[in-house]
Every structure is written in C-alpha cells, then in structure tokens.
C-alpha cells in the first residue's frame, strides 16, 4: 500500500471508529486533557497577568525609576519609544502652615496627570469623608491631604494651606493612596499637589532632599525591555523597581497563587494522561484481532502499525481542535466570572495555551500509545485460528519507561521546571507502584475474608488480577486527586488565610517620643485598644562588618546606596513576636545580656554574615559595634512590627530612640486616632488596614481562581475513573453472558458487578487517603510553607466515597454488561 492508500484506509477505519464509539473514551480523555490544559493555560495566563497588575497597584505602576537627583530625560524618551504610559511624581519633606499659623512637617508629593498609572486614589471631600469624590489630578492652586494632616491641623474643606511661597486651597481628602504602602515608615502626613505648582511654590532648591520618580506601565514585553534598558543604561543611583520587587506580602501571595494554579494544571494533566494511557491501551488491545487478520491477508507489520498510528493521529487532531474550542469557551466563562472580582478588564491570553494543549495530547498519545500499538502490530497471526495465541508482548519495562518519559515531558510542559517535573513523575511512579503492590495484597486479603455472598465479586477481582490492579491504581489516583481537591485544598487555603491572623494589627504608630510612651500607653488603654508592645526604634547606618568599612566592600554604586541606607534598629530583652531563632542563641532576658545583634536570616544570608561576625552601626555620629549572636526567621506576613536588626538592650539603650507600636482597631481609623496628634505632638498613626485588605482580597481572588481551575482536575479525575471502568467492560460482558447462560439472575449479576466495584473503590479509597495525606503534608510543608493539620475525614470520605462513587460509576459504565443479550455476547466472543 502506498501512503495515500494507507491514509484513505486509515481514514475509513477512523470514520467507523468514531461512529462505533471505539475511540469514545480515548477521545473524551484527549478532549478533556486538551480543554483543561488550554483553559488552565489561557486562564492562568490571564489571571496571572491580572494579579500582576493588582500587585502593580502597590507601585502605582508596572515599573518605577527613582532617584535622589533629577532623572535624565533619556528615560522618558526611551519609555515613549517603547509605547509605555508614563507619569512622574516628586516627593520631599516640607512644612505647611494653616490659617491659624500652626505648622506641620509633611511629606509632599507633586504628581503629573496620569498618576497613578495602576490602581486608583480614593478621594473624598473633607465634609463627607464617606462619599467618593474622584478627581484626576490636583488642579493648579489646590492640594489634597490625608486624614492625618486634617486631624493635626483641624482643616476643613476649602481652607488655605501655605506651602513654601504659595497658598493652596484644600480640595480633597486622600482616603487611599495605592503606593503609600511602599514606604510605610514615611511617617509625615501627605500633601499632594500638581507638578506644575512645584516651581511656583519655590520649594525645591539645590540640595533639597527630594526623590524623583518616573512611573511606567504597559504590556509585559516593552516593560521588560524598559527594565533591561534602565538597568544597563542609567546611572546607578537610579533605583529600578518592578512589580516583582514589590512588597514581600504581595509577592508571597502572588507566588503562592501561581504555585496553586501550576499544581492544579499539573494534576489535571497527570490525570488526563492516566486516562489517555488506559484508553489507548484498550484501543490497542481491541485492535489486536484486526491487526492479525490484516497480516494474514498480506499486510506487513509496518503497514499495520502505520494504520493504527494514523488513526491515533487523526483522533489527536480531532480531539485537539474540539479541546481547544472547549478550552477557549471554558476560560471565557471563567474569566467573565472573575472579571467582576478584578477591578479591571482581564488582559488577553497569549497563544501558548492551545499549542501546549495540542502538544500535551500528542506526547501523551505517543508516549502511552507507542508500545501498545507496536505490540498490536506484532500480535501473533495465529490468533486468527487459535484465540489462545495472545502473542502480545508481556514485557512492561519498555512500555513503562516510555510512559514515564512521556509523563515527564507532559508535566514539564506545564511546570516548565525540570527538577520539579522529575520529582512529580518520580512521586507518581512510586505511588502507582505502591498502589499496585498493596492493591494486590489487599485483594488477596479480601478474598480470604469474603463470605460466600461476595465470593463471585472477589473472584472477579482476582480473575482479572492484572486489569484489577491497573484499575485500582487508576481509581486510587483519581480518588486521591479528588480528595486533595475537596479537602486538602480547603485545608491549605484556610491555613493560608490564617496566615494573616484575625488580630493582625491594622494601625502603626511611629515617632512616639520616649517621654510620651507611658502617656500614650495609657491613652490606648482608655480607648480599650490592646497593644502587643511599644518598641524602641533607633535610626542607624551600617558602617562596618568585622571592622572593615562596608562602603568599601560594596562593588557598585547601587550596593553603596544600599549601604548608605538608614535602618531602623530596635532593642529588646525578649525575642520579638512573630520571630524565631534559626541559628545561634537569644540573649539573657533578665537585662544582663552583653552587647550583641540578632539579624533576620535572609538579610544576613544575602550579605554573607556569620554568627560571631561583628557589625558596626553609626548612630547619631557614634559607632556601635557588637557581635552577631543569632539569626532570626521573621514572619513578615504577620503584619507585626518587625526589624531586620535587633540589639540587646546593652547595645542600644543609650542611643537616641523614638518608639513604635502596632495594634488592631475595629472602629473607624480617623475617629479613633482623631485627638492623638494634638495630644502627643509628633506621633504619626498610619492606617495599614487598607493595604492589608488588598493583600487579603488578592488571596481571596487567587483561591477562587484555584477552585475554578480545580474543576478541570475533577473532570480529568472522572475521566480516569471512566477509562478504568471501560477497560474491563468487554471482559465483563463476556463473563456475565456466560454466567447468565449458566442461570445467574439479572439481580445476581448486578449485585456481583456493583459489589466488585465497591470493593475496588474502597481499597482504592484507602490507598488514596493515605497518599493524599502524605502529599498534602508535603505540599504544605515544602511548596506552600504552611502548617499542616491531620484530617481524619480524608480517610472516611476516601473509603466510603470510593466504595459508593466507584460502584455507581461502575454500574452505569457497565450497564451494557446487563443489557447485552447473552447470545450476542457469546457469539461475538467465538
């Protein structure tokens, strides 16, 4: 046969396959695999991009360039060339004076139109602080102020504030500033004005302590080029910040969400792969007879193999097209659902999802189908005369090996991580091995204890020992995925949410003077506010490491700038809350400790510090040197006051310090903190509830997305169960025909089938619960870094759910067993 003939020949057979339902399960598995990979791909792509945009709110842009000197014009030129949206702001400290000649130190921010490029300011008038009153940019001659300044200077709507040489009318109250969280310790209250007013106010002279920021936003690729360009082209005193360098809380939330979504799609692909493997094996077994006939009639093995391969290729193409269409619509629906939760139009998906979907189908079919198809091509021709010539190559080593390699590549396509894929595949292989081994042992044990009533069912299991173990492994894998989704997902997500404790502080108070500490504590007590602690804060610069000046150490200006950076140190007898010692020891808590430092572990690792090294900080002109005594792990997500560097009291107690505190309030921020500024001059209360809410919202959205994505995993899991049930259908039809011919009643056979599946389901559920526990623990511990709690329901639901679910699925899938007339079944067997 030449190739076009072969193609026609295969085409004809394929048409019949489709009509006869021969490839139904395989097609279904493939469509689900392609649809879920495509939908998850499209969806995670869009959600991922949307979440990055949300994170971008924190910067008010996708990319920032900030400097203490005026920024070179080349940045703007380049950004415009790349088609980016741009804006600027300039921040500096200054003093405002109100109509009563009261003055206050403020943090001025002059902005151009367009600011913020990402996220939005929430503005109200000063009269109605609950009614949104949006405006684009402060009009010339007006300023916007925050709640803190309103309280300190008792400002009303329309009042005049003097800033430098110019008077401004107060027009709006800033309730929320997206990028305010970027620098929580910028303690002074905010005054925002138009950039064009900056010159008129003559506030910025030479030597002013201003920070100039250029904001950029746009598509991923021009942003990446801009970032690269900035990093290699502008003077190193320009600090470049992108979404990914955002605040640690958001970054971790984002990373976790992506891991969840990645995990969901990997599990989906694994399950769909298992369904494909089962279905393709079934297809090949069915084709053994046909291939023997073909070869009897003169076809070579190659021709038979090509005939089978072409049919599989056709099903891959057909299923991929249907899968991509289904996947596209599925993600449209999902995106629409989530659209309302995201405060933006979801970005368009990339083109990779359908490509990955098709590749997944192709690799899965090729990997799992190659050996069975080759085997079907090599089947002993004598089969046409004597059925007991199975002739099927029983060596499973090669099949398994190729299957494992295919699984690896399929997982790799999803995870894009060589090592992670290897670990996942090794885990799955080990798991299937254990399923098979224990399955066999348990089936034997069940047979030993089964009474006469169930003997027929258990005998059925053992008669089909080979396929029973395959089915058992597939059921266990499917149930495990469903358990992980149904229960563990909830556990992990809850643990994640618990990560922000309900009593997490939402107010920070800074700049409390030493003589105000007791009074302030009393004030909080009067207002029934519980405080975890009031911590001293000492501003310092890092001067030397082991006696060597750190400035000389740092290789480039950027590092030097970091070295020049001011740090907030604290001192304490006790280990601060939300911290634990990972190396070294905490000092004596009775106040007798020698001078020493305790350093945050990542901060120390980054700089290569070791226990026993000495660090010198310059504080108010004085060098303070002490050895590093311990490294601490700090839980930044606790929202408690945290410090990179803590000294023992003896180290810092004599240094000039202000005090800081944090606590949770349930009432309105501005009402609660209203009188504080006048009562304790200089202190600043910061509302971080808004920022925390954003982190929480992000987590909620991410977990919602994950739940939707897991729907596909459930579908794939069901497909595995279906494929596994189908794989023994032919055998069951023949057996039950025989039993019915021998006089078994309809009821007896139904009972036997259901009981056999129930036993299989219960065993699979037991194994699945065990592995789900192990996997959940490992995921919590190593992937999501969350505490894991043992869940007993897993076992109960696993075993009961497995027995009930599988027997129902088995009953429906094998209804043909009961409806096929024995004579038809037996004639087809002959």
């Amino acid at each position: 046969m030449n190739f076009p003939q072969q193609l026609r020949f295969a085409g004809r057979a394929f048409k019949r396959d489709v009509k006869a339902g021969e490839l139904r399960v395989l097609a279904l598995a493939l469509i689900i695999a392609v649809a879920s990979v495509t939908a998850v791909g499209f969806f995670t792509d869009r959600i991922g991009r949307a979440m990055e945009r949300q994170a971008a709110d924190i910067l008010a842009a996708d990319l920032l360039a900030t400097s203490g000197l005026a920024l070179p014009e080349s940045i703007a030129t380049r950004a415009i060339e790349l088609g980016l949206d741009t804006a600027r702001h300039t921040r500096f400290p200054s003093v405002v004076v109100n109509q009563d000649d009261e003055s206050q130190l403020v943090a001025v921010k002059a902005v151009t139109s367009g600011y913020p490029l990402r996220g939005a300011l929430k503005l109200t008038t000063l009269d109605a602080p609950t009614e949104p009153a949006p405006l684009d940019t402060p009009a010339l001659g007006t300023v916007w102020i925050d709640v803190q300044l309103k309280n300190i200077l008792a400002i009303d709507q329309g009042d005049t504030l003097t800033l430098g040489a110019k008077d401004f009318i107060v027009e709006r109250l800033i309730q929320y500033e997206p990028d305010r969280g970027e620098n929580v310790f910028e303690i002074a209250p905010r005054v925002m004005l138009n950039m064009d007013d900056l010159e008129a106010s003559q506030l910025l002279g030479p030597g002013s302590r201003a920070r100039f920021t250029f904001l950029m936003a746009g598509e991923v690729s021009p942003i990446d080029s801009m970032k690269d360009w900035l990093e290699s082209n502008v003077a190193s005193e320009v600090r470049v910040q992108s979404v990914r360098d955002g605040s640690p809380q958001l970054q971790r939330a984002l990373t976790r969400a992506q891991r969840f979504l990645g995990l969901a799609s990997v599990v989906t692909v694994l399950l769909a792969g298992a369904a494909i493997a089962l279905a393709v094996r079934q297809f090949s077994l069915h084709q053994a007879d046909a291939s023997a006939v073909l070869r009897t009639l003169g076809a070579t093995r190659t021709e038979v193999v090509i005939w089978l391969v072409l049919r599989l290729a056709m099903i891959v193409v057909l299923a991929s097209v249907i899968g991509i269409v289904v996947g596209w619509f599925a993600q449209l629906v999902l995106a629409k659902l989530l659209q309302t939760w995201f405060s933006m139009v979801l970005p368009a998906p990339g083109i990779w999802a359908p490509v990955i979907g098709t590749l997944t189908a192709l690799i899965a079919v090729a990997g799992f189908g190659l050996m069975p198809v080759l085997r079907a091509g090599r089947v002993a021709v004598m089969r046409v005369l004597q059925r007991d010539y199975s002739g099927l190559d029983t060596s499973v080593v090669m099949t398994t090996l190729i299957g494992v390699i295919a699984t690896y590549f399929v997982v790799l396509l999803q995870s894009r991580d060589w090592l992670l894929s290897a670990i996942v595949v090794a885990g799955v292989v080990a798991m299937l091995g254990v399923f098979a081994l224990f399955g066999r042992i348990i089936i034997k044990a069940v047979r030993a204890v089964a009474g006469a009533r169930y003997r027929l069912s258990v005998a059925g299991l053992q008669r089909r020992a080979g396929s029973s173990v395959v089915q058992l492994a597939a059921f266990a894998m499917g149930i495990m995925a469903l358990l992980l989704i149904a229960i563990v997902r909830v556990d992990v997500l809850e643990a994640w949410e618990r990560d922000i404790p309900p009593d997490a502080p939402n107010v920070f108070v800074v700049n409390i003077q030493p003589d105000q500490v007791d009074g302030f504590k009393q004030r909080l007590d009067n207002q029934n506010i519980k405080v975890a602690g009031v911590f001293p804060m000492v501003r310092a610069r890092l001067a030397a490491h082991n006696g060597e000046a750190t400035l000389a150490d740092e290789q480039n200006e950027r590092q030097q700038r970091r070295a020049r950076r001011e740090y907030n140190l604290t001192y304490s007898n006790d280990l601060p809350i939300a911290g634990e010692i990972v190396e070294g020891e905490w000092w004596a808590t009775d106040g007798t400790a020698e001078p020493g430092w305790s350093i945050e572990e990542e901060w120390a690792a980054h700089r290569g510090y070791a226990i026993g090294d000495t660090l010198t900080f310059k504080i108010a002109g004085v060098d303070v040197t002490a050895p590093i005594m311990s490294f601490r792990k700090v839980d930044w997500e606790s929202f408690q006051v945290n410090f990179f560097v803590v000294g023992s009291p003896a180290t810092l107690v004599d240094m000039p310090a202000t005090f800081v505190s944090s606590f949770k309030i349930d009432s309105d921020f501005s009402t609660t903190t209203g009188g504080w500024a006048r009562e304790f001059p200089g202190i600043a209360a910061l509302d971080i509830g808004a920022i925390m809410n954003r982190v929480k919202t992000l987590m909620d959205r991410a977990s919602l997305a994950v739940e939707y994505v897991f729907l596909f995993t459930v579908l794939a899991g069901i497909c595995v169960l279906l494929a596994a049930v189908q794989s023994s259908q032919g055998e069951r039809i023949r057996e039950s025909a025989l039993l019915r011919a021998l006089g078994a009643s309809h009821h007896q056979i139904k009972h036997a089938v259901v009981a056999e599946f129930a036993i299989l389901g219960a065993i699979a559920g037991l194994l699945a619960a065990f592995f789900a526990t192990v996997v959940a623990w490992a995921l919590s511990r190593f992937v999501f870094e969350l505490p894991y709690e043992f869940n007993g329901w897993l076992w109960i639901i696993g075993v009961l759910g497995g027995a009930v679910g599988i027997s129902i699925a088995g009953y429906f899938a094998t209804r043909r067993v009961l409806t096929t007339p024995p004579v038809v079944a037996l004639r087809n067997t002959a």
Partner: protein
Amino acid sequence: MNNSTQSADSAAAQPLADTPVLSGSQIEKSISGPSGLLTILHSLDIAVDNSEAIAIVGPSGSGKSTLLGILAGLDTPTSGSVHMLGENLNDLDEDQRARLRAGKVGFVFQSFQLLPGLNALENVMLPLELSNTPDASDRAMTMLDQVGLADRATHQPLQLSGGEQQRVAVARAFVSNPALLFADEPTGNLDSGTGHKISDLMFSLREQLGSALVLVTHDETLAMRCDRRLRMGDGKLTSV
C-alpha cells in the same frame, strides 16, 4: 520492500505448473507445556497441486489448525520446511511471508474474522488494497454481487447474520483470484442449511477460479467434496 520479497512476488506470479502450489516436508511442531515439551505434529509431509482441493479431517485438538497455520505461513514449524507458491517459507521473515500471501492466498475462518471497523465492501476490498490492485472497489463489488450480497455492501459486519458474514468472508477470500485458499472449519459456526449454502458457494467459486484449497474440518460431508482427504491423528497425517 526488499529483494527477497520481490523475488517472492515474481516467483509467485508465475507458479510452475509441475511443482505443487504448496508442500511441506518433515514438518514438526513442539510446544512447551506444563508437563514438558509437547509434540503436536510429527514429521508431516504434504503436497497440494495446482487447483487441487484437499481436506484435513480429525477430532478437536488433533493439531489440524496448527498445521493449517504452519502451511499458511502464519506460524513456523519447529523443524521441517514449507514451500508455498515456489518459495521456501523458512527463507522468509514474517513480513515477507505476509507479502507473499498478499493477493495470492485467501482465507475463510470459522469465526469469519471480518474487520468490525469496515463495512462489507471495504472488507472485501482489503486483499486488493494490500496487494496494490487497481479498481479494488469495482472488483470487490462484483465479487459481493457473486455471493449475493450486493445490496448489503455498506452494512457493518455486526449488522449481518452469521451466514451473510461468512459470505462476505468468502467474497474476500476469492476477490483477488488467489492461487491458494485456506479454510478453517468454514461452516463450523453456521447451522447446517446455511453451512451447505456457504460450502456450495465456496466450492463453485474455487472451481470457477481454479484455486487450490486446503480445508480443515471435522465435517465429513464437507470433506467429501474435496479431491483428497487426509486424517490427522497422533500428530500424523494418513490418507483416507
């Protein structure tokens, strides 16, 4: 396609009139069973002349089908040799044996062995397509007409009765005008009336086309219609 297959093709295309179309000498077949090596066929000799019909009869399990498989090149003997259409099957590998059969050897099986994925016409076309014969569809249709199933051409095997399926199988066996036909209990799955019709059809087509026939059966009446009868017993063949 390799050289030896080509030589097989050319040899088969012009079978020599004075050599048997099929011959086996000293055929032995042993398989390893639970109680050691079990010899099914003992040094058998057999020859089938052009257009000759021979029947191999014997009880179930006597090794008739094993012999048929070896003679047709579907299986290999433990020792001895088989010559088919002028080729020593021992010199050919499995694919070359398949090539040798393509279009020149027909089969009728007890269980019909129609491909479930193909309709009646497509099943009949198979041997022609496998031997790259032109006009496969027309010739197959003519053959279906000859067996009286022209109106069932587009039916699936499962939509046909047992007798009809076997008629399709007969049409498939003769469509390529084979030099040699193997039939394994062709009426074994059919009632006696249908069985008669099938055997009439088979023998009339055989006479018409001049194909040699090797028929394995335990039906003595059917065997009587052949030119020669051989009885299989204890792994040996004896003339009846």
